[in-house]
């Protein structure tokens, strides 16, 4: 664990100096997590891919200058925050793109066999359950139980106190349970 942190600190340091190879390694480390975090919030893999790329590009742009090192001591929390802001942007920009017709249309349009064959019913079920939660509850579920972050880190990413995360976590689980119960 210590080594991971040290390595990450070095990679961040190198990236801040413009070292793209180092940034590539950070990308490898966090691609899955960030993709998943975005995917469960936008419910569309193409958007999730675009936003994931955008998050890393944004992180790169923000690393070199004007950034207080203290703020990126925890690169993971930092890139999550960037991803979160991009998701907010995404919804602000589209506002209500989420009409069911539109989604259905997109689904028809997209016949990527790779996606279709790996689609998993239980995943879709969970996605639906999560999509009914409000944004904060959604984030807690994704961070805590999908990406397996602890209370402290979840709180840091969400800009909340740990106590609030605990409350939200409880509420989110109750909501999810209700959804499954009704389903």
């Amino acid at each position: 664990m210590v080594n991971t942190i040290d390595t990450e600190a070095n990679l961040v340091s190198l990236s801040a100096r413009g070292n793209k190879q180092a940034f590539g390694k950070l990308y490898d480390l966090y691609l899955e997590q960030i993709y998943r975090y975005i995917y469960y919030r936008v419910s569309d893999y193409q958007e999730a891919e675009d936003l994931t790329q955008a998050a890393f590009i944004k992180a790169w742009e923000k690393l070199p200058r004007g950034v207080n090192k203290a703020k990126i001591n925890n690169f993971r929390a930092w890139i999550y925050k960037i991803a979160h802001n991009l998701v907010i942007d995404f919804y602000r920009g589209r506002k209500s793109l989420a009409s069911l017709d539109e989604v259905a249309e997109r689904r028809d349009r997209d016949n990527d066999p790779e996606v279709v064959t790996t689609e998993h019913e239980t995943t879709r079920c969970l996605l639906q359950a999560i999509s009914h939660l409000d944004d904060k509850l959604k984030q807690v579920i994704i961070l805590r139980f999908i990406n397996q972050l602890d209370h402290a880190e979840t709180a840091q990413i969400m800009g909340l106190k740990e106590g609030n995360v605990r409350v939200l976590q409880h509420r989110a689980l109750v909501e999810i349970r209700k959804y499954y119960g009704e389903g």
Partner: protein
Amino acid sequence: MSDRFVNDKVVDILATCLDDIKQAKRTPDECLGQYPDYQDELTILLDTILLIEQTPLVSPRPAFRNSARRELLEKLPDNQSVTFWDRLRHTWQIPTIKVERRFAMSLIVTLSILGAALLGGWGVAYAASDSLPGETLYGVKLALEDVRLVLADDEIDATLYGEFAQTRLGEMERLMERDRLQEMPLAVDGYKNDITAMMQTMGRLSINVDQKQAMLRETFEIQARFMARLMAKAPPQAQDSLQQALQIMDQLRTQTRDQLQIDQPEGAGQPEETGKPKDTGQPAGTGEPGGAGQPEDAGKPEEAGKPEEAGTPDATPQPAHTPMTNQTPGVGSGTPSNGQQGGSGGSGGQPGGNPGGGGGHP
């Protein structure tokens, strides 16, 4: 007991149980046994967690994974201007402040590191100065280099960048000697950045073209000789990396030579003699990599809403597709997780029987 009190109590018990289960201090059954009054609700909650954690994880599509990294690295703007020569020409005529430094940290943090190095004795600094890419102290080495840049003016900075570029070459040599070729790209990238920064800083100097030419020629000659030596003894696997470094240097050297010839005035008048004020401000439109700022800035809307996309407000789109899914790693293992990517060891770690047996889906 009021509902509110019960609720608060459950919130805390749940959180504590989850922490303990994750750290393998208690099993779910032990948690349930410890709080008989809340057993029913806890069972439902833990069961729900299990349900979530047993759902296969979503992962990026392989096609995306394969191409995205390469595309991303290609797309990333260079920290120091890609079109450095344009910038160099620009800065020779227009005053600028020293904003292009490669500072990875604020002055305060940098000085803190310096302070720590002083307090920790020069041993740390000395050990760091010997470190190589991929080693723990390498970050300290870079930070100390940054400290030197912070404390110096442009003229010294130009020399320092040249020196650091030379250091990167030395690192390449030592990596080769230690057969750590996988770290070579880090050193090559570092070399590229330092040598480019040297050129940029040089461009800002208020010295005449002849002096610049002499400084650059000397630096490039030393580095070219060093690189030739490296190439001669490099194993085949290292040739690519070295070739890249060589190309970068050749490219910069050629550009510099050509440009200095173009900029060389027929008479005595040099660009710096045109009365440019020294480092007083940021030139407009210098091509700063876009909008560096705090992470919070990312929250600003950047895309215009599409007018035709009217729909239900606040609705999250229904799942369009589920990309690659993996089996959740954590639940079955009962192994404590450190929360790392794809982390295993979920909160509902199941050994000994999970409450409710990880119920089925609706």
